[in-house]
């Protein structure tokens, strides 16, 4: 019988298979950041172990880093200690590190792909659940805990329990105003936050094949929000073109050998998935969340749902608690929800295409009075590219704040946080209670919806922007 993409990549990395034991998998790339690694390095030190393959390991600083005044000492002493600990550990164990201020610094899941380190058919791990991002290249990529980080540092392998496979087939073409973010939010609303549990998802179908690499990363990034172990997309010409010429992409004969191998990484015609979900792309529309988990979402044109409409009792209770926390009532049109803050950034939507999309909506317009908009590029490279294209001035001319690279308000570990009761439209990945700051309320949106929301002051899509809210670009500019 044929095999799926996930099964092929898995099989190629089995170091040891024995009855009654989980497979021992080889790890091709291990990404590190400051938050989930200190206790792992500590474990190595206590056991007198070294990092087995420093040449397959790379670290960056992202979760804690400030996005303003980066030339000054970090104000929060605890954050500073954590960053200094990473620097000390990387120096001691010989791990390549891109610290704050470095040209290659940025969110770990933006850095790996842009360096060309994330490649088809590789296994990628990181002590971060959004490692699923790298599956966009046809890599098997999953988030791990700190004990597993230590395990990979010491052995370059991981014992992994078997997985099931789920095909998420997106038929047809996405409407012009529907983005990858809308698509993945709609997929999560369909399968639920626990629906992917134990599965590796493979996104396929015409709509997926037409997506750029950056859009594919947005899709795979949020696989974890459906509870999935990982999300993958088969590599194709789009993938190869993205990789060609990148710093760590193969060259010469290695490139040819790699592409030949990468072309085999497709699910066989006769392979069988354990489960399949089919989505009709034409039925999709801009999508936003109303609740406190990423599965609680609806089309922007809808209204806040009635918790009583949920058949499952735990979902009903979750919806009741979510509406209470979010300060929303049943029947309220989503378009009428006002926001205080708009955040564009994160490993979900902090790449250059995301910034271009937000800038296009904002060009010649103004952020509404009383709304704060933060634009945080996913990496220093993304920031430099945006500056080269003049996007930063589009943002600042509109009244948005242009910041330095990092995770920032996605999780509020640095000073970029919501205040209690504040409401955001955010291009990040989680709308959990307090995720963006104690008592903060989050609506997950695409970069386009984020920018339109910033202009109107309430949840909106670019199509909602009438000439009344648009300031024409002065002639000759």
């Amino acid at each position: 019988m044929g095999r799926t993409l996930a099964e092929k990549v898995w099989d190629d990395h089995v170091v040891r298979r024995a009855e009654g034991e989980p497979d021992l998998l080889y790890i091709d790339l291990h990404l590190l950041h400051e938050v989930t690694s200190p206790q792992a390095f500590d474990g190595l030190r206590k056991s007198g172990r070294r990092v087995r393959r420093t040449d397959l390991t790379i670290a960056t600083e992202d979760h804690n880093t400030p996005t303003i005044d980066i030339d000054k000492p970090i104000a929060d002493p605890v954050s500073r200690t954590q960053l200094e600990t990473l620097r000390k550990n990387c120096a001691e164990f010989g791990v390549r590190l891109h610290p704050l201020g470095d040209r290659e610094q940025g969110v770990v899941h933006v850095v790996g792909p842009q360096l060309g380190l994330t490649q088809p058919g590789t296994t990628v791990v990181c002590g971060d659940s959004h490692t699923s991002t790298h599956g966009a290249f046809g890599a098997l990529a999953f988030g791990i805990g700190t004990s597993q980080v230590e395990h990979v540092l010491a052995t370059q392998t991981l014992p992994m329990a078997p997985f099931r496979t789920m095909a998420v087939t997106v038929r047809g073409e996405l409407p012009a105003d529907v983005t990858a973010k809308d698509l993945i939010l709609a997929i999560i609303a369909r399968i639920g936050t626990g629906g992917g549990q134990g599965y590796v998802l493979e996104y396929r179908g015409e709509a997926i094949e037409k997506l750029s690499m950056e859009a594919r990363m947005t899709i795979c990034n949020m696989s974890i929000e459906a509870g999935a172990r990982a999300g993958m997309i088969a590599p194709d010409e789009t993938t190869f073109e993205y990789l060609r010429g990148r710093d760590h992409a193969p060259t010469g004969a290695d490139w040819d050998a790699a592409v030949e191998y990468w072309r085999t990484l497709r699910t066989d015609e006769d392979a069988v998935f354990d489960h399949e979900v089919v989505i009709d792309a034409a039925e999709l529309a801009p999508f936003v969340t109303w609740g406190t988990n990423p599965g609680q979402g609806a089309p922007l044109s809808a209204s806040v749902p009635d918790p009583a409409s949920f058949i499952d009792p735990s979902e009903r209770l979750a919806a009741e608690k979510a509406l209470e926390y979010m300060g929303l009532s049943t029947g309220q049109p989503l378009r009428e929800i006002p926001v205080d803050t708009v955040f564009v950034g994160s490993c979900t939507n902090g790449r250059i295409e995301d910034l271009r999309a937000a800038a296009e909506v904002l060009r010649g317009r103004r952020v509404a009075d009383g709304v704060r908009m933060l634009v945080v590029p996913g990496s220093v490279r993304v920031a430099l590219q945006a500056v080269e294209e003049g996007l930063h001035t589009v943002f600042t001319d509109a009244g948005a704040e242009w910041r330095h690279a990092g995770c920032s308000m996605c999780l509020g570990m640095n000073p970029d946080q919501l205040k209690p009761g504040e409401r955001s439209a955010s291009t990040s990945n989680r709308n959990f209670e307090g995720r963006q700051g104690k008592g903060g309320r989050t609506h997950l949106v695409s970069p386009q919806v984020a920018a339109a929301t910033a202009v109107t002051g309430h949840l909106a899509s670019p199509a909602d922007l009438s000439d009344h809210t648009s300031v024409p670009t002065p002639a000759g500019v």
Partner: protein
Amino acid sequence: MEAFTTHTGRAVPLRRSNVDTDQIIPAHWLKKVTRDGFEDGLFEAWRRDPEFVLNRPERAGATVLIAGPDFGTGSSREHAVWALQNYGFKTVISSRFADIFRGNSLKNGLLTVILDQAVVDRLWEVVEADPQAPVTVDLVERVVRAPGVETPFELDENSRRRLLEGLDDISLTLQHEDEIAAHEAERPSFKPRTLVA
């Protein structure tokens, strides 16, 4: 890792689904560089409410957490497991756990027990009716016992053995050094490297 064989203690009924790891331990606690001292951060936002179940005097000293479905979703932070253990929990019962959280818990000796939601409902009723009701999680027999309830649970034999014996995963893997080296020798030259010679 501390071994887990059998544990009996009083329980906390947490009637919530989708308890994500941001609720278990908020991000600002993640700046610490140790595995201990997270107990005050456990469910920090909810604990500000004096009526929150963990704050009830009759739940003081409880060691068994009985939660709704999809416990531990979201962030991979192992700090969530450390926070539960630092607070004093030895085991968590739910009808469904997020994969990464479950992996993290079993690596730290916090036993996560999967039971049908109908059984979880019964356990909630038992421990809500009598906060002193003892709940036993017996990994040797793979059984959960509470007054009027006795129910088996599943756990793969490999995980069970590692927990019962408190085995260190890394030492076990390093016994297969020759197999790791053999795999490394076969890796194609086009695979990426972070350090360029």
